[in-house]
């Protein structure tokens, strides 16, 4: 029973949700309930994950491990944001500024650092991948897209040039569509494996 119950729950939940794609009108309220419960659990899981994050940093400080000083920063920032948020609520103007004025510069700067990493990486296409059909395709795709992004060429609406430019833009769509179909296939199999209890991640398998 200890083993069977999770399997039954996983299969029953999954099949009900799946049936919702077919009998949506009839099952809608049940499906809504299941989705809401799922949201609660994901939210709670997020909170537990954060608890592990906090515990890791407390552990570091307590055991004077490497990086303990930074852990103090994490914990102070966490506690301040948590307490302020619970007292002021996220709608508060100061709280919004506190969160966004830290998140925006750090996140945007990380992306700025990434731009340099990508710039540097662009030197290494052939060195890393060699001359293969895929690397040639990559080069062509990247160059065409970047040149069109530059918008140095002007096109009159309806002109032959515009038509060709649009065709060039759409050329990578074939590959993208192939990838999308392929991974939808993969997703289907992964999902079915859970629904058929072949994969049981909840049991550590």
């Amino acid at each position, binding site marked *: 029973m200890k083993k069977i119950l999770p399997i039954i729950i996983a299969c029953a939940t999954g099949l009900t949700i799946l049936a919702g794609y077919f009998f949506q009108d009839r099952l809608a309220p049940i499906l809504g309930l299941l989705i809401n419960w799922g949201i609660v659990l994901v939210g709670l899981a997020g909170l537990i994950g954060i608890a592990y994050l906090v515990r890791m940093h407390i552990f570091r400080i307590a055991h004077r491990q490497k990086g303990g000083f930074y852990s103090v920063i994490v914990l102070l920032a966490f506690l301040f944001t948590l307490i302020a948020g619970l007292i002021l609520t996220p709608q508060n103007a100061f709280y919004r500024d506190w969160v966004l004025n830290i998140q925006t*510069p750090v996140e945007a700067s990380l992306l*700025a650092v990434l731009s340099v990493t990508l710039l540097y990486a662009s030197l290494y296409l052939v060195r890393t991948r060699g001359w293969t059909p*895929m690397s040639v395709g990559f080069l*062509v795709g990247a160059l065409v897209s970047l040149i069109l992004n530059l918008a140095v060429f002007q096109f009159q609406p309806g002109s032959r040039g515009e038509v060709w430019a649009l065709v060039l833009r759409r050329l990578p*769509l074939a*590959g993208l569509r192939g990838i999308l179909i*392929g991974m939808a296939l993969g997703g289907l199999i992964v999902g079915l494996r*859970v629904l058929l209890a072949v994969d049981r*991640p909840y049991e550590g398998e």
Partner: protein
Amino acid sequence: MSLYDLIWGGVGLLLTVMVLSYLIGDNLLFRLAAYLFVGVTAGFLSVLIINQILWPFLLQPLINGLWIEKIWVLIPLTLAVLLVISQFQRFKGLGRVPLAFLAGLTAAVTVGGAVFGTLIPQLRAVVNAFDPLDWYQSPGMPWLRITEAVVMLVGVLGTLSYFHFGRRRRDQNDPSEVRPGFFEGLAKVGGVFLGMALGTVFAGIFSTALVAMIDRLLVISEFVMRLMGGS
């Protein structure tokens, strides 16, 4: 510029410089900014989960709701309690039930979305491109549309062939990376399309990162200019 704006501007500038210092290498400044960010994000997310998920979906109906609402909440509450207490070694096994619920839910949404949201519409789009009515009735050059449809079909078939898992059946002990004959040929074509797709995405990624870099430089310059302007 008010003092309030000045302070936040200064914080933004400081954090930007601290993170950009990672370009030189990992250093104390970068770590300070990174960990501050992690702490703030974790705190904010906790507040959000409590305020917008746990409170309205679980706690509020339990505290203020009618008895019938409380009954409805019992099931997620049980699952939530099981999930929490399963984090303790003694009750380890209890977490399987809520995790199984979550896995089943995700798997089903995955299957439904993959098939009805991607697979079928994308297959339909490839097939619809072969509609003769579309070729001749809509404005544009018909031969170009026909070529586009054929290229699209070949590209999709090639890309799918590229991902064929099976290998050519030769000696069973002979390790091989070669697909069966038909797929191998198509896969070569597919590789080019796949490469083009990835190249296009790369261009997009670089564009996004570049816009972020430009924005950071603008923020720095604007703050410095305002500071120098004394406003």
